[in-house]
């Protein structure tokens, strides 16, 4: 019994310590952002591997999510004779929720895991220690540009995802299901507001970008420098990012849309 309590206490203390380390780490990295502002080449390379290479999966899944939404939405709406509102349904669900959230989940799987594995391997092969030996701060040189790249790429990816989803829904809705194209766009334009819906979606994805990038780089930087440790850190990145994004999304939705 005592052992049980000891373990419980130890693991609680452990997670709180990790959280504290993560927050201090984030503050140090943000403070070290001057490095990539002065040398934009560092950021460019990370934007390429984090953003551009994630584009393909975002484009393809955006199209398919929009198409599926369109199909399912149509079957529900047509019973009420409201299939003209298909555009509104798809556009609101994509701009407010699905765009930012699904993009962040895909981002965690495609880019977040890669970031953790890369940094973890750098640590395991003592490249980070080597940098410190040469008086190069790895937090500024390696971590800060990667976090910035995640923060910048995720909103751009989410906006592209949303737009392609709406295009996919438009194609399925008008060509396959016979919804009037004019009504699709005009009802959407009448109901979707730029300030309330589109901008709030972008704000969400900015926060998701920060959270996803933070979890990915921290897990890489904090992992045990062994092959087992790197693999566990990579898994943890995907799991923790997904949970954090979903929980944060609930809070943000409750705050933003009344």
């Amino acid at each position, binding site marked *: 019994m005592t052992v049980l309590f000891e373990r419980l206490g130890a693991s609680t203390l452990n997670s709180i310590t990790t959280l504290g380390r993560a927050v201090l780490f984030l503050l140090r990295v943000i403070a070290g952002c001057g490095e990539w502002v002065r040398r934009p080449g560092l950021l460019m*390379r990370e*934007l390429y591997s984090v953003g551009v290479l994630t584009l393909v999966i975002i484009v393809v899944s955006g199209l398919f999510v929009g198409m599926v939404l369109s199909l399912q939405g149509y079957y529900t709406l047509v019973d009420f004779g409201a299939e003209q509102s298909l555009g509104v349904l798809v556009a609101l669900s994509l701009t407010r929720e699905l765009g930012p959230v699904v993009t962040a989940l895909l981002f965690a799987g495609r880019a977040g895991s890669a970031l953790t594995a890369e940094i973890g391997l750098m640590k395991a092969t003592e490249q980070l220690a080597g940098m410190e030996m040469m008086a190069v701060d790895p937090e500024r040189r390696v971590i800060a540009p990667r976090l910035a790249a995640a923060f910048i790429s995720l909103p*751009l990816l989410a*906006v592209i995802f*949303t*737009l392609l989803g709406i295009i996919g829904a438009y194609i399925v809705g008008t060509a396959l299901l016979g919804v009037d194209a004019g009504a699709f766009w005009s009802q959407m334009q009448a109901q979707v507001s730029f300030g309330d819906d589109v901008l709030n979606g972008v704000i969400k994805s900015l926060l998701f970008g920060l959270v996803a990038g933070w979890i990915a780089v921290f897990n890489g930087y904090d992992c045990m420098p062994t092959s087992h440790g790197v693999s566990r850190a990579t898994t943890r990145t995907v799991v923790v990012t997904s949970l954090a994004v979903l929980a944060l999304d609930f809070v943000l939705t409750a705050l933003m849309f009344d």
Partner: protein
Amino acid sequence: MENSRRVDLAVGAFVAAGLAALFVLAMQVSNITAFQRAEGYTVVGYFQNVGGLRERAPVRLGGVQIGRVSDIELDQSRFEARVAMTIAQDYNDLPSDTAASIRTSGLLGEQYISLEPGGMPDALSEGDELMLTQSALVLEDIIGQFLYNQGAGGSE
């Protein structure tokens, strides 16, 4: 060197695509021009019952949208709903005795405010109150009235 230029090009294209997508979302999906046209003057009307009217619902005159509902709240002293409507600056010559009624587009559609112009020579301006208002039709009331009339007719 060549490699780094390719990376720059790809990143530039990526950022441009993202910004272009945001632009298209703004213009095509949310129609930011209609959003800006909501800048205008505000008039208020008091309704006994606004039914399902919501903020941002259209304000129409003769079927043409000329503004939006900007605010709905309960007036504590009159116990009526105070509805503020923002009407586009282009339509600043509405008669001051214009009447407002809450209508429904179609059987199940959204509710909107329909304006009916009066005949007074002076125009509505910022902060004016619409004196003639007609509340939303509440289906339960109509059914109740119908049943009551049926009952009254049957006893004769």
